[in-house]
């Protein structure tokens, strides 16, 4: 066989392997999620069936039960959803405002020990939620913040500020400082220059930072599970536990709630997915 032929064959094999590998990986990524979605539409009997039923039947029972209030699980989904939304949106908004200020300070001002401040802030983010939840629980119990929206919002703001600072710092650094100067010369105050020029230019970066903050708050469990008690403040990740009893788990109901949890995150992420990647890389690499 001549060399051209060998090379051609080898390339064909590589191509097949490449395709097969990608296919496999995408399967592994997608199937667990799809499995959850699928099971949220299957009757419990079928989920629990042994031997397994491979032909799914379609039912809306779990959703009906979930939204029907005290149905089979009696999990107050609406309240959890509302709590999650209030806590996540508010904490994201506040974290973005505070984080943007910090990111701007790091991007635009020179001061002593800047790097130490920066790493220090990041270290606070690195404190494990579980480790923090123990003392935070006691402190919050003292000041009466347990089981309140406000308490959880406060915690999530503190959690999200460092990473927001990291991302926005990167984005503001991308903007030449001459833009700010030009705006000042054009008659803006520093405040106006920020809001009329720098903020609109960094908008996509800020949006991606907001998504990350939102996802963190929306999905957080370790702290929320300790700091919330009643249906008045429990968020959805904590609510998932309502489907577990001592020895059994209501899988169908849980899957339905899971779908409800993923949906907003999914939609939001897809809307800004381009900025999301740019946000991560700009913030980090060119920082």
């Amino acid at each position, binding site marked *: 066989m001549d060399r051209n032929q060998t090379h051609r064959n080898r390339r064909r094999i590589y191509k097949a392997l490449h395709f097969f590998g990608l296919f496999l990986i995408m399967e592994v990524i997608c199937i667990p999620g799809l499995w959850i979605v699928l099971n949220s539409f299957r009757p419990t009997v079928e989920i629990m069936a042994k031997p397994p039923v491979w032909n799914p039947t379609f039912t809306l029972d779990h959703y009906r039960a979930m939204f029907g209030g005290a149905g089979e699980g009696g999990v107050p989904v609406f309240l959890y959803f509302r709590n999650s939304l209030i806590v996540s949106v508010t904490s994201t908004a506040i974290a973005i405002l505070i984080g943007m200020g910090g990111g701007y300070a790091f991007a635009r001002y020179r001061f002593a020990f800047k790097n130490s401040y920066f790493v220090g802030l990041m270290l606070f983010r690195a404190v494990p939620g579980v480790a923090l939840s123990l003392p935070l629980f006691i402190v919050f119990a003292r000041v009466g913040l347990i089981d309140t929206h406000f308490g959880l919002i406060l915690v999530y703001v503190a959690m999200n500020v460092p990473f927001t600072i990291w991302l926005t710092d990167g984005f503001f650094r991308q903007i*030449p400082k*001459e*833009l700010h*100067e*030009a*705006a*000042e*010369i*054009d*008659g*803006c*105050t*520093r405040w*106006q220059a920020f809001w*009329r*020029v720098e903020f*609109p*230019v960094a*908008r996509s970066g800020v949006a991606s930072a907001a998504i990350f903050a939102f996802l963190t708050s929306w999905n957080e469990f370790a702290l929320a599970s300790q700091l919330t008690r009643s249906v008045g403040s429990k968020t959805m990740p904590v609510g998932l536990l309502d489907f577990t009893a001592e020895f059994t788990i209501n899988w169908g109901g849980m899957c339905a709630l899971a779908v409800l949890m993923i949906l907003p995150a999914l939609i939001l992420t897809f809307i800004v997915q381009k900025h999301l990647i740019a946000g991560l890389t700009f913030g980090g690499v060119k920082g």
Partner: protein
Amino acid sequence: MTEVTLSNVVKRYGKQQAVHGIDLDIQDGEFLVLVGPSGCGKSTTLRMIAGLEDISDGEISIGNRVVNDLPPRERNISMVFQNYALYPHMTVRENLGFTLQIAKQPEAQITRAVNEAAGILGLDELMDRKPAELSGGQRQRVAMGRAIVRQPDVFLFDEPLSNLDAKLRTQMRVEIKKLHQRVGNTIIYVTHDQVEAMTLADRIVLMRDGHIVQVGTPLELFNTPVNTFAATFIGSPPMNLADGVVSDAGTIVLRDSLTIPVPKSARAHVKPGQKVQLGFRADNLMPVGHAVEEKGELVDLELTVALTEPLGTETLLFADLAGLEVQAKMLNPRPVQPGEKLAFHLMLDKTHVFDAASGVALRG
């Protein structure tokens, strides 16, 4: 009337001093160019005038009003930046009108001012584009238009042409000069390019290391540089400098015992034994028969040509003068072979003598 006055202006960054007490009076309507190598403090000076940098010491006044602590927006200036600093999220129209919009001018007036500026700079067809869709030259124009719309007392330019290619740069240089003739405002212009400085300026301020080296009209700087730095920075090609020692006989002895009489202007200022540098431009060292009208004292030299650079109307000759490579100019050029020996005339009246130690020009 908008004079700009700097008196003893100092800029310190911590312990480092970037600008060392500058005094400068800029006339109303004057086109003043700050020129110098990078890091000489010219941009810092401009930014202090603009209010973008704090003034560590001294006083700046614009139109007889001390502006030391005024923010940029209250100085009624406008500035064109090196990278243009156009607002990327606004169209050209919005960029131009931004300053008036901030000042809360009525819509009709904004439109009129914007259209007028667009007309002056030929931007009419670009009004609805974003800066990212413009070429370098167009961005440059928009930046200038934005400056015009503001109707400032003083225009500040911070190396506005350095991001353009050579051809556009020449073109925009002309446009800036035209703009000045048309609006007649005071302009302070920073550049590191001596050609821009020469061609644009009413007056040039040459700076180095945070000090002013020389202030004067372009021709003053060209013809009577105060020291070797000014001599080599202004003019292209840079002035030739040859080391030598003043002899008892009133001549300067270069290497290889080549002697050249001390030029008339310097005679009263040199002492025998003084180490000096002889400075002359390529325009004043020309092959016999290929020179401009020769006047005054001439020195005959026979030099070997090592390399030629034909430029069309003239050829630059790189010749060997007592072991030193000097540049000479040949008008109405004929082909010259490397290694060819030519007779040259050095125009002594246009030759400068500098003190070798301090670099200061010795002339009366």
